[in-house]
């Protein structure tokens, strides 16, 4: 998996992951895409979605913690 930077605020890692998912989806949806690449792309896209989910949860937890402490 491509290294995704984990920084606060406008997270370029998260954003990059989303962009990659969109790109992969477009590729998967394209009938011209060869079957050889398909499973690899699907796997990658699914992983990225999971990654984004996890990141989002982390951010949310972090912010919940901040809001509880204030």
């Amino acid at each position, binding site marked *: 998996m491509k290294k995704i930077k984990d920084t606060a605020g406008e997270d370029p890692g998260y954003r990059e992951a989303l962009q990659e998912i969109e790109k992969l*989806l477009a590729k998967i949806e394209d009938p011209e895409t060869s079957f*050889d690449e398909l*499973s690899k792309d699907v796997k990658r896209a*699914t992983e990225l979605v999971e990654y*984004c989910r996890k990141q989002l949860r982390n951010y949310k937890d972090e912010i919940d913690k901040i809001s509880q402490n204030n």
Partner: protein
Amino acid sequence: MRAERSITLLELQEEIKSSIEARLERSYWIRGEISEIKYQSTGHCYMDLVDRREGENGISARAQAIVWSSVFRMLRPYFETTTGQELSRGMQILVQVQVQYSPLYGLSLVVSDIDPAFTVGEQELQRQQTIKRLREEGMFDMNSTLELALLPRRVAIISSVQAAGYRDFMKHLTNNEYGFTFQTELFQAAMQGTTAPAEIISAMDSVAARSGEFDMLVIARGGGSVQDLICFDDYELAANIAQFPLPVITGIGHDHDIHVADMVAHTMVKTPTAAADFIIELFAREEQQLLYLLQRLRMTVQARISDENTRIEMLKRDIFKGVSDKFRIAEHRLELLQQRLRSANPLSILEKGYSVTLCDGKRISSVADIREGMIVRVVLSDGALDCKVENRTEL
């Protein structure tokens, strides 16, 4: 010759005596000023009475008057209770007299009655004249126009060190309930009697010479009889108070009359104790004002803090609301992406029993691309079959 026709001194004096007494046998009420007075140990009272012609400064008439002890015993208490003073020099009196002539002592007026009401009236008249003069000279309100220091803590006092009034003043000033401290200095002066005005004025001069060191002058004297306090009606003293460079506070103990000294002072109070109260009150009022300001300041700051807190709370709420909205949107987006991914993935269709046909590695979606005899690959979920097309049917 001449000696035969002469008479003796005694015979002449007897002649004078009988002519005077025959001519002036009745008694007269006369007005005059006491220029000298002597109280004898025998109880008799001797006075020199004088009179001035209208508009003249010098004395125009003088006579000796005697009050015999038997009469004086009766007249004296009545006079003193009515006027509040004893007979003294400079006093205007109205007396009933009988003219007597003694060959040995000459002419004298024997007093049989004194009218104290006249003296009271004369003194009041004198007082009114003093007030009128001070007004005419523009001095009456002079001292009261001076501005009192906001916090007058350097106090010059004119009093007599033995006087109860001075002790009362100091005790009250130093033991005040608020714990204010003052810087005081006593300038001694006799506070009663004929020398009092001059002594007070001299003490005032000493204070005035160092006026930069003081904020105010207090003239303090405890209670006294009308006579004790008559000096506070003195013109010179009043004029000095009026023109004094510092505000003058008079605390001259008295019950009824207000003295001229009080009228021209910056502030008059009834007693030395009241004078101390007056000064303490100035400080207490100022302290009250400060406390009030402090309270206002505190309240303003509190209100301000509370406003800011509310603002911050609202901002915080907005932040978290914005964040949670953003999360919701992001989650939704991920959800959609996943759904799209799921439906777009042809591999998931294979699992349901469908298959994909490839020719030369490309997906075939129409039989038109295929001719009989061609080799195609049929991809299933768990593998692929390479098949030869035997027949082609168009739907």
